[in-house]
């Protein structure tokens, strides 16, 4: 019968990959944007939005990584940040102020885990799928480096930083529309202090995906900040 009719030409490029037609991607982008705003708890929708709109930004990011020695190594070795790959006990034992110690502190304070990141589904290139996966897994480290909590305000600030850094439309939309749910007082702090700082840091910093974080656990957070070019948080 109509066996392979809807295979969209290619088949699964990586586990979890769902091949989609351009029309489906457009519908997904619109639907996920709407749903992400309507129900902020649908993190999966934010992820889908990122994947379906990232067709220009992701290759850009991948090229930036390819042309940087550390980024290139990351693309080759494909490290994953997961509870199973991290030695939590060791990181907890590191001195205060080090990246590893602060990262674990961040995870515990905010009760989050790196394992809740959605694997990519709608990216039609296996390497780009890794790039967006890496971006997601590094997100918590961004929180740590920027010193921002996981409440709505903190997330918006991180989104501004990421929007400048990655150019992903999902970050831009999140940065622009995230503040909808914030109070007036928070909006003021956001507009006067946090966002200008996030933009300056984002512009000044080198590509955050080019840092092999797993090899910097012992490094003090401030020193890593300076190295990357992130200004101290207000």
């Amino acid at each position, binding site marked *: 019968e109509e*066996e392979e009719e809807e295979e969209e030409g290619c088949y699964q490029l990586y586990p979890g990959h*769902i091949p989609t037609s351009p029309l*489906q991607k457009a519908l997904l982008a619109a639907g996920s944007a709407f749903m992400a705003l309507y129900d902020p708890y649908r993190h999966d929708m934010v992820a889908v939005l990122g994947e379906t709109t990232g067709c220009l930004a992701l290759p850009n990011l991948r090229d930036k990584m390819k042309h940087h020695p550390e980024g290139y190594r990351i693309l080759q070795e494909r490290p994953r940040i997961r509870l199973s790959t991290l030695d939590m006990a060791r990181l907890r034992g590191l001195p205060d102020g080090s990246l590893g110690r602060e990262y674990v502190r961040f995870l515990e304070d905010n009760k989050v885990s790196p394992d809740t990141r959605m694997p990519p589904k709608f990216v039609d290139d296996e390497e780009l799928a890794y790039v967006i996966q890496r971006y997601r897994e590094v997100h918590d480290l961004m929180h740590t480096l920027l010193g921002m909590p996981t409440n709505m305000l903190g997330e918006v600030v991180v989104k501004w930083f990421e929007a400048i850094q990655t150019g992903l439309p999902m970050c831009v939309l999140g940065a622009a529309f995230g503040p909808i749910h914030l109070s007036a007082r928070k909006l003021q702090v956001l507009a006067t202090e946090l966002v200008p700082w996030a933009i300056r840091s984002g512009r000044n910093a080198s590509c955050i995906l080019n840092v092999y974080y797993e090899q910097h656990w012992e490094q003090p957070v401030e020193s890593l900040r300076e190295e990357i070019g992130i200004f101290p948080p207000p």
Partner: protein
Amino acid sequence: ARRGRALRALCGSVRGFAAGPETHFGFQTVTEAERREKIYQVFESVAKKYDVMNDSMTLGIHRVWKDILMHKMNPSPGTLLVDVAGGTGDIAFRFINYVRSVRERQLQRKLKHHQNLSWQEISECYQEDKSKSLGNSQVVVCDINKEMLKVGKQKAQHLGYSEGLSWVLGNAEELPFDDDKFDVYTIAFGIRNVTRIDLALQEAYRVLKPGGRFLCLEFSHVSNPLLSRLYDLYSFQVIPVLGEVIAGDWKSYQYLVESIRRFPTQEELKAMIEDAGFLKVDYQNLNSGIVAIHSGFKL
């Protein structure tokens, strides 16, 4: 890629010897055991969003289809209905509403013809009918999936349905009921998910009383070529996206649209129903064959 496909085919046939006959799951080829398992998981996953998705995918039209089924059934009070794969209760609730309104009209008519009753006689009439507002009609909702039944029971509670309604966990291919028990057997948008349709039809025949009616509401085949193209476009491009956005589940809705295309045509299903022993088998196309109601009698 060619080597991979050949290897997969070899593995498939070896598996076939071990795990049983092959069948389909959407456009994939799987064993019967795998298919049952996969379908169970699909409905376990979609149960909570089942009704929302039905409304979104069909723009609410599924309600009209189910209403038409109920009108075709035209049950009178006292009917004993089994709704198989009845999951979230849509048919059962409609049955109760229908029978209740028929009963009310009966009652009104009865009272109109007895204008010279005493007050005592009239209040007695109301008493006896309040306890039989359904006139002893009953519907048994039978489903293989615990999650779907759970959602159905919650809905019933929420909407206030309790009288004349029972929920049974059971497999359409092997119903937990005695022979010759029910007046009507319905299966709405369920038979497509049964692995051995022939067994389900035989079971339907078995549990119906002589004179009982079989009714099946199911997605079917569109013969009009233009409509068929539009329908395919909508099904394959839009529905999985709706599944992802609303229910966070692309794969289950991809399965749904694929399974519709794998299902027998109107005539093929009619033949299968006749094979099970039913007589006066007929079907009615709704929306040019997007959906069809098949009917048969145990005579």
